[in-house]
């Protein structure tokens, strides 16, 4: 009897429990109607982000950013200032300098003698843009260029200025522009990383580049730039070890995936699935990368176009060619750095060397994209982190002088990808020191680049440490005049 009483009690409790549970289940089911992908296993947040991006019809699908690291002088490239040649050696008027802070390198200098370009300037193309004699190849494609002579930045030294350009902040803990685009738009080709980095170095005075420049910051690690090696094997450790066949590799990955799946079931850590996905990506890269990095099949006209150095791994020309191949295969953002533009002294000589490195290959990249019908959808950007002073640093002679860092005005150019072609935007004063028309701040530039990719720079955000971050911080205006 006692047993029956006990069982009855248990039954009673069970019934009560079940009926209440059914209520709970019912309300949960009702609530779940608000979570559309609850049962399909999709990551809703990321998915909805991806569905919403791009925010509008993009003009460009991909970017190749030819970063001229060390800051090429605007006064020997695109910003022609005859006044500086005429007033050679005269003091920079204080009314022009207006208390601009100086770097430690010229702060002690007693005099600031103006110095004009050692190189001649000529006008080219339909746009009649002025280009120095150092860049004959770029001059030949001038009608494809959108030259901005009115860039300005906040930093005055290389590292903060570079970091500012790449991440939108001078302190290096934010995601790089390529990482933001990888996060926002993903990879076009899932067999390659969305963000690739290529380095080269000229003979000029150089400033280092560091991996923080292509860091994912607080974004997921998969958005970090993949640095290609300068050796003949651009992606290290990608090839299978000797004696391992592709089948064996496949079997190995399957086994590892099965084991990873077991631990996923135990711990439910999403990092485990991320790891498996990365193995699979690497497996696909094993066939995709050699297809792309093989330059032996490029035709003779391509070698002539980029110059024969394009076949020497690690040169700027080779990186331009590789950038074209990566971009053509759907890599969203290819970031090049060419070091050696920091000409504090012996500027004319250093510029000759640097220009020889980059002129032909930069122009070649534009021509090459164009003849394949890809320039319309690929944005090419060329420029440094700031400009150089209109006065001489150190000893002054018409053929031998130096220039210090100058953040107030400098020139860059863009091509293709929905920017106007054959225009020169912005103007500096006759001294080439201050902007007098249409200034473009680094954040404006970043906002414009994102806009061209179909992204509203104010909407591409990531929440981290309690606030939403974006590439342009809380600044930036799209420069609509640059957009075709």
């Amino acid at each position: 009897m006692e047993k029956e009483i006990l069982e009855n009690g248990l039954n009673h409790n069970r019934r009560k429990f079940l009926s209440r549970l059914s209520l709970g289940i019912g309300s949960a089911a009702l609530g779940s109607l608000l979570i559309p992908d609850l049962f399909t296993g999709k990551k809703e947040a990321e998915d909805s982000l991806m569905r919403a991006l791009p925010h509008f019809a993009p003009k460009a699908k991909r970017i190749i950013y030819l970063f001229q690291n060390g800051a090429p002088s605007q006064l020997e490239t695109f910003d022609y200032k005859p006044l500086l040649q005429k007033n050679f050696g005269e003091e920079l008027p204080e009314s022009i300098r207006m208390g601009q802070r100086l770097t430690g390198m010229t702060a002690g200098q007693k005099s600031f003698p103006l110095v004009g370009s050692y190189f001649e300037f000529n006008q080219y193309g339909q746009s009649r843009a002025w280009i120095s004699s150092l860049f004959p190849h770029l001059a030949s494609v001038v009608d494809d260029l959108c030259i901005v002579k009115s860039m300005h930045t906040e930093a005055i030294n290389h590292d903060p200025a570079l970091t500012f350009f790449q991440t939108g902040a001078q302190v290096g803990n934010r995601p790089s522009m390529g990482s933001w685009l990888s996060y926002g738009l993903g990879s076009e080709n899932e067999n390659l990383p969305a963000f690739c980095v290529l380095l080269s170095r000229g003979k000029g005075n150089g400033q280092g580049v560091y991996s923080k420049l292509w860091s994912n910051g607080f974004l997921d690690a998969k958005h970090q730039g993949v640095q290609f090696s300068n050796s003949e094997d651009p992606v290290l450790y990608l090839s299978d070890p000797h004696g391992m066949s592709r089948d064996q590799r496949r079997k190995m990955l399957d086994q590892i995936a099965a084991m990873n799946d077991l631990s996923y079931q135990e711990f439910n850590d999403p990092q485990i699935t991320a790891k498996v996905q990365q193995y699979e990506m690497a497996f696909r890269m094993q066939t995709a990368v050699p297809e792309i990095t093989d330059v032996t099949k490029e035709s003779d006209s391509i070698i002539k176009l980029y110059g024969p150095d394009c076949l020497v791994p690690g040169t700027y020309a080779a990186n331009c060619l590789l950038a074209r191949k990566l971009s053509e295969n759907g890599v969203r953002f290819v970031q090049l750095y060419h070091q050696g533009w920091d000409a504090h002294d012996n500027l004319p000589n250093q510029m000759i060397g640097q220009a020889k490195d980059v002129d032909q290959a930069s122009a070649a990249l534009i021509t090459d994209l164009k003849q394949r019908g890809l320039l319309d959808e690929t944005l090419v950007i060329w420029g440094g982190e700031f400009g150089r002073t209109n006065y001489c640093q150190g000893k002054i002679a018409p053929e031998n002088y130096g220039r210090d860092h100058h953040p107030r005005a400098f020139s860059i150019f863009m091509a293709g990808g929905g920017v106007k072609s054959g225009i020169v935007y912005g103007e500096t004063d006759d001294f080439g020191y201050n902007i007098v028309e249409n200034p473009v701040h680094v954040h404006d530039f970043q906002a414009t680049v994102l806009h061209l990719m179909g992204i509203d720079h104010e909407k591409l955000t990531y929440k981290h440490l309690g606030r939403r971050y974006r590439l342009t911080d809380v600044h930036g205006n799209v420069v609509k005049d640059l957009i075709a």
Partner: protein
Amino acid sequence: MDSKSRIFFWLENLLFFWIGLIVILLIGGKSLSIPTWIQVIGRTHPLILHFPIVLLLLAIAIVWIPNSDWGKTGKPILVLGANLAGFTVVAGLILATEDYEGTSFSWHKWLGIATFFLSTGIYFLLKKQTQSLKIGSTVLAVVLVLTGHFGANLTHGDNFLFEPVLSKEAQLVAFGDAEVFRDLVQPIMEAKCISCHKEGKMKGELRLDKIEGIKKGGETGPFFLAGDTENSLFLQKIHLPLEDEDHMPPKNKAQLTDEEIEILRLWVASGGSFDQKVADLNQDEPLFQLASNRFTSEKTYSFSPASEDDIEELNNFFRKVKPIYPGSPALEAAYFGASTFDPNSLSELKSVKKQIVRLNLNRMPLQEVDLGFLQDFTHLEELQLNFTGISSSQLKSIENINSLQSLAISGNSLGSESLESLKKLSSLRKLFFWESNLTEDEQKSLQDALPNTKIDFGFDGKGIILQLNPPKIETEKIMFDDSVEVILSHPIQSVQIRYSLDESEPDSISSLIYSKPVFIKGTSTIRAKAFANDWIRSEETKTTVFRKGIQPKSFMLAIEPNPKYKGIGAETLFDGVKGKANHTSGEWLGFTDSALEVEISLKEGQHPKSIQASLLLNEGAYIFPPESAELWVAENSKWKKIEVPKPKESLKAEGARYGFLNFLLPEEDFDQIKIKLKPISKLPKWHPGAGAKGWVFVDELFIY
């Protein structure tokens, strides 16, 4: 009467008070003159109205609860609710004197009054829990809900409730169709003005939801004066400081952005037309530029979108199919990974054949693949077939695609047979045809046949002669025992590499042609250049390899080198490490104030024939060949000077490089060698440092 009944008594009486007031207000209508303090009561309407709603619904609920005590619970709640309904109606009628009219308003007003009278009626007439009470309360519930609904429409706009479920297709306005008023000005008014200036809520007797209202203006005058931005009333109000009472929109409402203000101002400035098209504006006009940023220059498509599942199914690692921008029915498709390409997968695209406008098949091996399926892609605008290996016969499949605007067929060497098909593509706007394999005449005939097409034949490199880059010289080591393998290479396969081992400059006629690795047995300099047709010969590269000499019994320096450049001491000279061409590398001994003087004792049985000093030369850094050299040998410490030629002088600065001094040793027997190299005491006149002392740098002595 106890206190409870007293409260009921007063509450019941109050109901009649409301009835009276309501009747008065209804009769007075618009002609009432309401003092300002009474207006405050009117404005409590939106606050108070929530109480009767809750209380009346609660009372109605009690009617339907079985076994509930209507008299004890329902009735007190109902009487309280009815009173608050009365107050709400009164306040509402007062508020209504402030510019409210329209259908929503009338419905709200009369239903609200009905709510009050119904609840009052139910309270007095239906005392018991009866069927009639149930019916009455149901009617009350319906009336109450409708009143609330129309009220919400008044404050939040029509369709407020159902807006989320009503289809709201994003209207993408194409630039060509956009009108200044309809697509620029009106959306701003709808977003920021109309909630107060519309039918039913004509604040200031102004309504902006109809063009007539905008033309008519409000109580203080016309809304705007065409072309006169200074005196247009609404622009004045917009520009008042935010704190100003007359500032529009009111402080607590969403404000106009700078761009919106600019658009409104420019619209008035341009004459305030209601049918001006954006595209007809002068391109220099600021309004045109503002507008051009707002409307999509993208074409809009009228065909229906493909199903999301169909699109999703087509996406995999090697094929991406997605809308050209979010919400567009038009799709773009791209293939990646030539090695994994399966031609059969192309037919799967048929499920979206109507929607695909861009197709990228670059680098996919399409030889022999039937491209006939492309004819079904009726909206295909952009086709990329670069480096696909297609032949001219395959082009026939696309010659009938009338929608095609851009075609890329670079890198296929199609040649003249392709002309027939290409010339039919009259709709084409862009053709990318690099490496076309067409003659200049054929290129011209194609351009003539397609006058509206921009054809890019690309860069063929013809007639451009560039300098080759130098070949690369690779050796396993620079210093070797017996022989060393030297490999020359050049990234361009077709070049010829010529080299010399005898210090002569390589040329394209007499120098050795490199074909396979060279084995070198003695110290030599390899000089090499690359040659090719249509290219300028490369600069020279050179490398010197050194055969190691014998190791003597002992050796010592007479005078220590300069302390800045002392290498690892005397050992440096026989350590088998070739210094880098840089005097600061720590592998060199440097002398300036004194001469290098080294005494070497040979092992028994060693009979060397020559001795070589390995120098560094870099005139720019004051490093010169020695001014003089002396060679001595000794047998049993009897020293004898051997005549040697004077070292060659430097005549110009040439940059850091290696140099040698070779001395032949006499045939006679000797067991010691002494060598003395004196640095240049006065730099020559041509040197910037003329007259100063020079340096001698030595890193190794070789005794053969």
